[in-house]
């Protein structure tokens, strides 16, 4: 039977919501599910993890070096714990897991599975490639261990009616001093974060200038939406790089996506095809964006976008 270790992500006394989704993926694999947490003061987080349905045990590893999650510090400790009979080590698929899981895999000398989106068995999973344009089913060697990250958008978090045991653990691993934490600049913006926003409004090259992008911001603010842009708009210098939505930009899955003046290049579509509802506004009725849009409106965005802003 599988014995699954989930590495829990947390910050400022709060367990990351993704952990409940990883537990859901682990339930698909089946077996005992333990969560391990690293930090310097874990009381609060440990009880949140223990409440997740289906979790057998929560292990806490408290030491000063674990105050901030740095891959070089955590990986050797995870390896020590994983070697105590675990068949799977799972990580949430955000930047925390993406940074950490491969370091653990390499130390364990196993090939890793990135972004599990479906579980077929304890050793067979689906994962996306080519920015989600091809889904591959992979069979993973079960020995000595399977290390994977879980694509959070593909699973629904388990409930929080559980009461798992919490156990403090000490890990005997020598830790490097070559990596030092300097600080975190939390992104402060009144607008919701592009990658987690339930609604996103994006603008393309048709906006023509960075001043004209203002109408996109206004619509987004009216809707409480995040703001994105096509690569063409970014390349033209209308908006900064970090707003780029697409295969080489951010891959997003909001429930509502409004594309304004975006033709729908393959690169862009790769970034939005998991959106719940796609709205396209474009004056070219043959634009490829209309092939994927749930609602399409042909016309001049400089008239339509302000009108839409007003009528919402």
């Amino acid at each position, binding site marked *: 039977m599988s014995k699954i270790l989930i590495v829990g992500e947390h910050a400022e006394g709060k367990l990351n919501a993704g952990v409940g989704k990883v537990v859901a993926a682990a339930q698909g694999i089946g077996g005992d599910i333990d969560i391990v947490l690293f930090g310097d003061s874990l009381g609060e987080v440990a009880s949140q993890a223990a409440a997740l349905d289906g979790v057998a045990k929560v292990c806490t590893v408290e030491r000063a070096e674990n105050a901030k999650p740095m891959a070089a510090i955590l990986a050797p400790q995870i390896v020590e714990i994983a070697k105590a009979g675990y068949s799977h080590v799972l990580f949430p698929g955000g*930047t925390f897991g993406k940074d950490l899981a*491969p370091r653990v895999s*390499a130390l364990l000398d196993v*090939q890793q599975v990135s972004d599990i989106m479906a579980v077929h068995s304890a050793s067979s999973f689906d994962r996306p490639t080519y920015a989600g344009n*091809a889904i591959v*089913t*992979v069979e993973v060697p079960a020995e000595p261990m399977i290390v994977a990250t879980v694509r959070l958008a593909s699973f629904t978090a388990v409930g929080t009616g559980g009461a798992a045991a919490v156990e403090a653990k000490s890990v005997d691993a020598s830790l490097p001093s070559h990596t030092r934490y300097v600080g975190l600049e939390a992104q402060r913006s009144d607008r919701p974060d592009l990658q987690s926003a339930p609604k996103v409004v994006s603008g393309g090259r048709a906006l023509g200038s960075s001043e004209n992008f203002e109408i996109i911001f206004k619509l987004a603010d009216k809707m409480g939406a995040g703001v994105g842009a096509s690569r063409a708009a970014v390349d033209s210098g209308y908006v900064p790089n970090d707003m780029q939505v697409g295969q080489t930009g951010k891959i997003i899955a909001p429930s509502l996506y409004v594309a304004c003046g975006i033709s729908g*290049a393959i690169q862009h579509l790769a970034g939005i095809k998991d959106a719940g509802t796609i709205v396209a506004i474009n004056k070219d009725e043959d634009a490829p964006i209309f092939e994927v849009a749930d609602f399409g*409106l042909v016309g001049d965005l400089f008239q339509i976008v302000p009108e*839409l802003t007003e009528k919402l």
Partner: protein
Amino acid sequence: MKVLVSVKRVVDYNVRIQVKSDGSGVVTDGVKHSMNPFDEIAMEEAVRLREKGVVTEIVAVTIGGQKSEETLRTALAFGADRAVHVKEEGDIQPLTAAKALAAVFKKEEGKLFLLGKQAIDDDASQTGQMVAALLDCPQATFASKVEVEGETAKVTREIDSGLETLDIDLPAVVTVDLRLNEPRYLKLPDIMKAKKKPIDAMSFADLGITPGAGLKVTKTSPPPSRSKGVMVKTVDELVEALKSKGLV
């Protein structure tokens, strides 16, 4: 200071991927290939570090078949001084690639290893982190700012909660994100000059690498397709449609 940059030949980001009807993979024959866009950013950063006087030599590395040489020539046109081609055909998984890259880095006695944060074909986002683990050195992934000062580097990383800064000792591995820079356009004279720069060829055997058992792809399928939507005539109609779906 010597910098290594790994570059991967991938299907161009503007190509519409076709999954083969028998589910055996995606069509890559006769399809435009380019340097992985994130690796271009890594190359650009290496060149900028040299322009700042921090870096003295840039070595581009690739793993792949004969055609990967084109990608190395692109790297040389960007400004790499020379290149290493680990000539291996077939599907090379991240841990195997990482072992080869770590071996090249050691052999070259590099100080900094720059890699794209992921390749846009397998989207694994593993190789850089694995190289760092194998070298037992620091890693800074998803970098949007790299400042090298003597034997250390300050790297700002784009993480889910914001911008995190790490201070790392060199040698170190840094994987780069979109915001780090904008790669320059290659000029014809540089492309011509690149043809004369040296490429060292070697194999896994030369590096002492034995590819182990890895992930086996048993099926490749297209993602579920979106159903055809409806065209609306007016903004009122659009607002109505969105309201009826409870989206606004």
